[in-house]
Structure formats: structure tokens, C-alpha cells
């Protein structure tokens, strides 16, 4: 597979930022002793990916954008006092959190409570190592980057348990018990559904998946719509975003595992939650939305800009659901994972395996067949989502959404005697 990418190798060609970092490393190799390059390379990658993109996105898309958009959803302004249109609000928030006292309960397990935010930050940085910003702009181009992503993003579950357990607070313990139970259940359909992608594209590398989508000129979103839906729900659940934010359910257990955290220790949790959501958006943009490619436009526009815009666009979905939906109960969430998403994911995997075998053996890997599979899979997704819901006993028409109306006051009126306006 080749990529039609026109960027030159000159260090000043900003369409591919890896030229710049390569030039720096080359220069460093000449003047510095051997081995320095191996230390310098990840640092440059860290500065490029994390400090320049993720941190700024966290502040201005995650904090400011989310508050602004949710403000609009709720028909209010959102922050608009600090700086023009409130753009400096995240900076003010960070300064406020830094100057705030970080309280620790006297009965808390101080070591674990202090280390939890630090451990929480670590995977949020590590996960960016395998995200391809451009054809050459990957910090670590490893062949199993999908597995790496799944492994790294399941570390936060452990951290939430550390945080919840160490505070000696009942609400925190409640929150962390919930999140552990939930995250483990949601890993299963997530991995099973992503397996379908791996079977179809025959690779575990995120970069190869982008190239696959470029080769066939179709986004995996269209070939595997079910996987996207399941991924989005599972990612919401693991990230504790509404409608699955039971770990920090404000109306029930105050702030869940974050109850006793204050100051920047809380700020690290809050900021890195957004970081994980951005990482999930980046993963989705890579796997389902064609990564840095945009049907040839990547030859003219820097691919990393296309990629970043896709990440932000996907992040909007997280904001949107947060501003709209109520929260599910824990047993409903677990039931949804095991009874609903897992069977659907398994059926989808079966269908994709069949398609793959047919495609390789019967159709000799002809390119047009992928479009046929897209149509089949979209139809299958709709049929499965609706049909399986019916199968497990979902009957919306049995829930009348208007009450019965009576004219005169009296006693109890049984349901059968007055016909209500059902839906």
C-alpha cells in the first residue's frame, strides 16, 4: 500500500512535521555523543504531540469549548468574562486550581492518594505515542498499536480504584467500586467489536488502518457502523462521560472517587479525563474516519491539520451527549453491556469473518466488494440494533407518555377503565 503524499523532505516543509524533528535529530546526532538522540526523540515527540496539541486541546476544546457548547445547549452563554469571548477562562481555571489548597483527610492513605493523580496522568500521555498524526508523524510506529492503545487506556480503571479506596470516604468507595465493575464489563464488547476491524483490515497497526481506508477510498465508519456505535458507547463508559458517568454521579454520590480531592490534584483528574476523551476521539478519527486522509485533500492541506480537525469534530459528540442525556443506573449499564452490546458485537464479528473469507477466497480481494460489504453491514447494523432490542424485550409503545385525563374528582380509576393517550 502506498500513500499519495506530496510533502518534500525539506525541514521547512510544514506539511510533514516529521521533517523538522528529523532535521533536529540529525543535527543533534552530529554534535552530541551517541545515545542522546534516543533520549531526545521521545522528548521531541512529547513536546509535539502532547504539549502542543493535547494540552492546548484539553484547555481550549475540552474545557472552554465544552463549557461554551453546553452553555449553548442549555440556552445560556457559558464563560464570557475572562478575555475576549472568555477564551482565557481555562488559564484562569488552572491558575485558580494551582493556588488552591489540596486538602487530605487525616484518615486517608496518603501515599496512594498522592500517587493516584500522577499515575492517572501517565497513560494519558503514553497513549499519544501510537496515534498517527500524519504518514510519518508517529512517535512510535509499532505494528500492534491497537493493542497498545487498549492496554494503556485500561490503566485509569486501576487509578480510579486507588483514588476511591485511599480517601477513606464512603462516596469515593462507592464510585470506585462502580467504575471497576463497569469498566471490566465494557472492555469485553469493546475488544470483541474492534476485533472485527482487525479481521477486515488484517492489521493491528493504526497507521495501516488509515492506509487501508485510503486504498479503498472508504471510511471504516461505513464498512463497520456497528463497531463505531459500540466503540463510542464503551469509550463513554470507560471515560465516565454522561450517560454512563456513574462513577462520579453527582446527584447520587456527590463526586464519586474524586470527592476528597481538591486543588490541582483534582485538576489533574479533570484535565486528564478530557485527555482520555481526546485520545478516544483521536482513536476513532484514526480507525473510523480515515485518520489524516480526506479523499485527496491531504496532498494540499497538511495532514495533521485534517487529523486534528477530525479529532475535535468527534469530541463534539462527547460534548453533545453530555449536554443531552440523563444517566443510566449501574445494573442497567451492566445489562446493556452483556445482554445487548456483546451479542451484537459477536454477530458482527461472525459476519465480518464470513465476509473476509468470501472476499479473499471467492472474490480474489476485488476492490469493489468492499462497497458491497458496506451496504450489507449498514443494513445489518440497523437490523441488529432494532431487532435485538425487540428480542430482549424492548417495547416502547407500552410506555404511554401522556397521562390519562378525567373530568371529575373521584377515587381510584383502574388503568383499563379510562383509555389514555398512549404513544
Amino acid at each position, binding site marked *: 500500500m502506498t500513500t499519495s503524499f506530496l510533502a518534500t523532505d525539506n525541514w521547512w516543509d510544514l506539511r510533514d512535521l516529521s521533517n523538522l524533528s528529523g532535521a533536529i535529530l540529525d543535527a543533534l546526532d552530529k554534535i552530541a555523543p551517541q545515545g542522546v538522540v534516543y533520549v531526545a526523540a521521545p522528548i521531541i515527540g512529547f513536546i509535539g504531540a502532547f504539549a502542543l496539541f493535547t494540552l492546548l486541546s484539553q484547555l481550549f476544546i475540552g474545557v472552554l469549548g465544552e463549557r461554551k457548547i453546553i452553555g449553548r445547549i442549555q440556552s445560556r452563554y457559558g464563560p464570557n468574562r475572562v478575555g475576549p469571548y472568555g477564551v482565557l477562562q481555562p488559564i484562569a481555571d488552572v491558575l485558580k486550581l494551582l493556588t488552591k489548597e489540596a486538602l487530605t483527610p487525616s484518615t486517608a492513605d496518603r501515599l496512594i492518594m498522592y500517587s493516584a493523580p500522577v499515575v492517572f496522568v501517565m497513560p494519558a500521555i503514553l497513549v499519544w505515542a501510537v496515534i498517527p498524526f500524519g504518514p510519518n508523524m508517529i512517535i512510535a510506529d509499532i505494528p500492534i498499536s491497537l493493542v497498545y492503545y487498549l492496554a494503556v487506556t485500561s490503566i485509569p480503571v486501576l487509578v480510579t480504584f486507588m483514588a476511591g479506596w485511599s480517601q477513606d470516604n464512603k462516596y469515593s468507595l*462507592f464510585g470506585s467500586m462502580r467504575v471497576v465493575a463497569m469498566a471490566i464489563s465494557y472492555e469485553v464488547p469493546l475488544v470483541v467489536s474492534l476485533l472485527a476491524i482487525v479481521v477486515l483490515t488484517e492489521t493491528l497497526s493504526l497507521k495501516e488502518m488509515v492506509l487501508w481506508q485510503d486504498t479503498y477510498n472508504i471510511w471504516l465508519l461505513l464498512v463497520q457502523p456497528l463497531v463505531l456505535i459500540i466503540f463510542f458507547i464503551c469509550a463513554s463508559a470507560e471515560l465516565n462521560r454522561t450517560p454512563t458517568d456513574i462513577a462520579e454521579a453527582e446527584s447520587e454520590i456527590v463526586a464519586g472517587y474524586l470527592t476528597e480531592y481538591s486543588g490541582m490534584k483534582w485538576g489533574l483528574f479533570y484535565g486528564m479525563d478530557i485527555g482520555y476523551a481526546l485520545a478516544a476521539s483521536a482513536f476513532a478519527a484514526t480507525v473510523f474516519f480515515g485518520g489524516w486522509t480526506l479523499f485527496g485533500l491531504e496532498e494540499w492541506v497538511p495532514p495533521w491539520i485534517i487529523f486534528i480537525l477530525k479529532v475535535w469534530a468527534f469530541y463534539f459528540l462527547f460534548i453533545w451527549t453530555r449536554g443531552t442525556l440523563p444517566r443510566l443506573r449501574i445494573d442497567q449499564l451492566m445489562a446493556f453491556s452483556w445482554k445487548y452490546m456483546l451479542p451484537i458485537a459477536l454477530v458482527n464479528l461472525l459476519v465480518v469473518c464470513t465476509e473476509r473469507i468470501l472476499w479473499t477466497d471467492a472474490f480474489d480481494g476485488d476492490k469493489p466488494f468492499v462497497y458491497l460489504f458496506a451496504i450489507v453491514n449498514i443494513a445489518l447494523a440497523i437490523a441488529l440494533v432494532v431487532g435485538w432490542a425487540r428480542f430482549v424485550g424492548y417495547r416502547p409503545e407500552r410506555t404511554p407518555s401522556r397521562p390519562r385525563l378525567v373530568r371529575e374528582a373521584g377515587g381510584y380509576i383502574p388503568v383499563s377503565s379510562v383509555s389514555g393517550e398512549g404513544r
Partner: protein
Amino acid sequence: MSSPIKSEPFVINVGPQHPSTHGVFRLKVTVDGEKVVDAEMIIGYLHRSMEKLAEERTYTQNIPFTDRTDYLSSMSNNLGYCLAVEKLAGIEVPERGQAIRVIMAELQRLASHCMAVGAFVNDTGAWQTPIMWLLRERERILDLFEMTCGARLTCNYMRIGGVAFDLPKDFVPQARKLIRDMPGFIDEVEGLLSENEIFVARSRDIAVIPPELAINASLTGPMLRGSGIAWDIRKADPYCGYEKYDFAIPIGYRGDAYDRFIVRLEEMRQSVRILEQALDGLPGGPHSTQVPLALRPPAGEAYARVEGPRGELGYYVVSDEGPSPFRFHIRPPSLINLSVLKEMTVGGTVADAIVALGSVDIVVGEIDR
């Protein structure tokens, strides 16, 4: 089958400082894992001894107290108290005064239900969006109150014998504009929530009150109607000329939290209907009768009840011919509706307990008085 792992129930306090207690109210929940095995409510944090204080003040001076019991529906509370004193002293209210009282009481019901529905949906975990929408419309009603009597929350508008002031010139057009927009707005909220699968899953078959329990616990208001019992003081014992207006009583199906929610939304629609009729047929004439400032009703007792937003709001006043009541008692619907909280919460999960509490629509100022 006995499990080798033993789990012990433990107690968590929901309140007095908690995001979903709607005031200083404490619910001591004993949980076994996520399951609630016992719930005990502890009230009295907001006790201000209103009933005793009222015995030291004149009849007119007591009206502001009634604002401060249920601070989300001060107009209904004013009305209940004034009706009780009028019944005691045998005072007739002119027709215009009665119509203005109906308008105010129904606007107050709309405002209060906005708050009730919004807070309830917030308790199910929606991140502030429904409550913000509902508060936006509630603002417009409070603006009308401010226009009429200068206050938005603690209105102190009703007087013994009528209302304090006549309606301002702008009031009727503004109120018409509001009730023209209101049905569309209720549709908007319904579109967001009524068929929202997550919301239905969280409130359907949660905190069920069977009709027998509802009657035995003397529940009133949407709590009672949600259980399928057609009971409304405005129909059963009309006051202020409610018998002239055409409206229906919405009743639920199974008595769960979702039924109480749809009953409240439908009551808002019915309130809009009453408001339309009241504004169309607003009579002229005086808004109040002349009542002596130092009112000394004849010895006796009177109990008057109104259909407040939360249920039957009763005022019991005893006179010994003195300038102040001998005994002053309030029947607060929130407190009596809350009495079934244990039945609603035990057996469910912690999350259900919060939904049950939210569906009662409590105002702690009224519970503790």
C-alpha cells in the same frame, strides 16, 4: 447457597449537605452493596417555629410567614392562609379579586412545576440541560410576579379580602404572550425527556406507590394522581370560583416516578388552559374588600385547603377574638408526601432512592416550617 465472602451493610448519609436533597434534609440510607435495605429520614434542620411565631402577630402580619414555608409556591400559600382567615371572619372576596387569585395560583403552579420537573430530571443525572430550559421559562413567570407585586419569590401578594394591588396595565398582554408560548415549550421538554429511553429506564417502575398506599398515607397532589386516583381540591372542593373553569385532572397508570413526571407536565398544560379562560373572563370591579387592619374574627376555627403545586395545602386557624390567631397550623403537602419515602426506597438501589426523593418534589422550608 452460602457465599464464603460476607458483606456487611453500611450506612451512608445523603445530606444534610448533598447535591440532591434540595435543601437541608438528611436521608440515612443503609445499603448492602448498591441495594438499599433501610432508609431513615431526619428532618428539622430548617425549623423556624412558624406556627408558634404566628400566634404573636396579627392576621395580616402572618401572610409573609406563609411565603416562607414553601418558598417555591408563595402565592398558593398566601391563598390558602387568606382563604382560612376569610372563612373564619366571613369575608367575601370580589369577583375580580378571585380571578386574580386564580391567575396567580396557576402561574405559581407553572413556576413550581418547572422547578419540580427540572430538579427531578437533574436527579436522574441529566447534566443540567432540562433544568436550565425550565428555569428559563420560570424566569418569565417570576417576571410577571415582579411586575405585579415587586417580589419574585416571596410575593406576599394576597391579602385577607382580596389581593394587595390591582394588576398593572402591562400584565394581561404579557401573561397572554407567556401562555401562548407555554404549550410549545412544554412540547419541547416532552420531546427531550418523555420518550428518552434513558430517562424512561431510570424512572419507569421506580418508586412505585400502589393506590392503597397512596390513600392510606394521605398523599395528595401529583403523588396521589400519579397512582391513578382522580383527586384534585380544585374539583372536589372548589374555591375562588374554580368550578367555572374547564380543565381536566391528569392521572397516571402505575404510580411510579415516570407517572408523576408526566402528570406534572400535563398539569402544566391544564394550568395554561385555566389561565386562558381566566384572562379572557377577567371581570372588572374592585380587587379587594375593605378589611380592618386589626382584624378580630369571631371565636371559632376554620380549615381551608387549596390545591397547591405539591398537593393539598391546608391552613387551620383558631380565633379567640384576639388580634392574632390562637392557633395556627399548616398542613404541608411535602411532609406528608414524604412519609412514604421508606416504602419507595427500600429494595431499590441508591440511584433509585435519589430518583424517588426527586419525584416527591419536596421543599424543605415547608417540611420543617
